[in-house]
């Protein structure tokens, strides 16, 4: 679905966007690329420390609880729910962007509201998980979970877990704030007045990025 652009168009002679992307949207892309390196640096430092350790706690033994399930051993179950919530909210966001392309204010409001609900649900899940781990004795500088080989683990595991999921959770939180602001602007008709819903697209880019980061946090902490 690449765009068709006339071959003789002189893109670089000034006054035009050679990339055919509005300035703010292009800068959002470059911000997200820089943020990719921030998260990448976090996850790679986690990997470096893990590779330098003789053993590491087993995620299946750490993350095996579910709300209201008591002491049932349910590895990966809760984080699967969190992943599903975030994928769903990514879908509702792209549907909001889609309605924005068609200048359908009601549709944008509906899907943006659902995206905010999904973001809040994810934050609620993360709050529960952090609280649960805290009551098990895990926090920055404190890790009760033994290594997979049975030896006593350092606090590295807990430090990286809370720092990286915390940094991601902060991105989710700020994404929800941005979505709420864009929703209020949509309700007030600001984008109909402007003649385009580019702001919804830019908020959408940020929101999808949050989902994208979760793919790798999920991979690095829970799956491998």
């Amino acid at each position: 679905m690449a765009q068709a652009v006339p071959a003789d168009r002189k893109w670089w002679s000034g006054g035009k966007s050679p990339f055919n992307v509005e300035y703010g949207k292009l800068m959002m892309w470059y911000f997200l690329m820089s943020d990719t390196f921030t998260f990448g640096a976090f996850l790679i430092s986690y990997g470096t420390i893990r590779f330098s350790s003789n053993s590491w706690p087993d995620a299946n033994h750490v993350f095996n609880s579910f709300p209201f399930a008591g002491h049932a051993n349910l590895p990966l179950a809760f984080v699967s729910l969190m992943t599903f919530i975030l994928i769903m909210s990514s879908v509702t966001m792209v549907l909001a962007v889609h309605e924005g392309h068609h200048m359908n204010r009601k549709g944008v409001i509906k899907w943006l509201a659902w995206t905010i609900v999904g973001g809040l649900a994810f934050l609620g899940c993360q709050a529960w998980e952090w609280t649960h781990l805290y009551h098990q004795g895990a926090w920055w500088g404190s890790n009760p979970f033994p290594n997979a080989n049975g030896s006593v683990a350092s606090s590295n595991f807990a430090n990286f877990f809370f720092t990286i999921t915390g940094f991601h959770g902060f991105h989710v939180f700020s994404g929800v704030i941005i979505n709420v602001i864009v929703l209020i602007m949509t309700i007030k008709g600001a984008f109909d007045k402007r003649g385009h819903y580019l702001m919804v697209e830019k908020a959408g880019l940020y929101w999808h990025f949050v989902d994208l980061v979760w793919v790798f946090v999920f991979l690095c902490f829970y799956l491998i």
Partner: protein
Amino acid sequence: MEHQHHTTSPEVTVHHHPAEGTKRIWKTFWVLLIITIIELGLGLLMYATSFPPFINIVIKGVIIILSLAKAFYIVSIFMHLGDELRNMIMTIVVPLLLFVWFIGAFLWDGDSYKNLRNTYDPHHKEQTTKPAAKPAAAPHDAQKPGEHN
């Protein structure tokens, strides 16, 4: 034929023709969901069985490749990067090649540090390979966060 829009921005852009339906979005959703379910299945398979380490590494490699596929679908379809001009895509994608060096060099460094330490620090090697005398789990009333490191 060409529409100029974005009246508030000074530069000229050519109108994107928006997709009519939402079929592509939902198809991508199902792809992401199915890949995630396969990843979970592989993760639980490693948990439920005890394969030799080599097989586990292969399974983890497959899970990493599946995650990269998910990332491709999110960026290309949900973020519409696949619909942009090729030059614009390249300014985003090419810098990411730095990750090839970034990941390789740092994981290699971590592994090298582990091997050197095991060679020259027998005490450390013993402490991190022998099982603890009793489960190390301690509630917060026995051990406040930050006191122990």
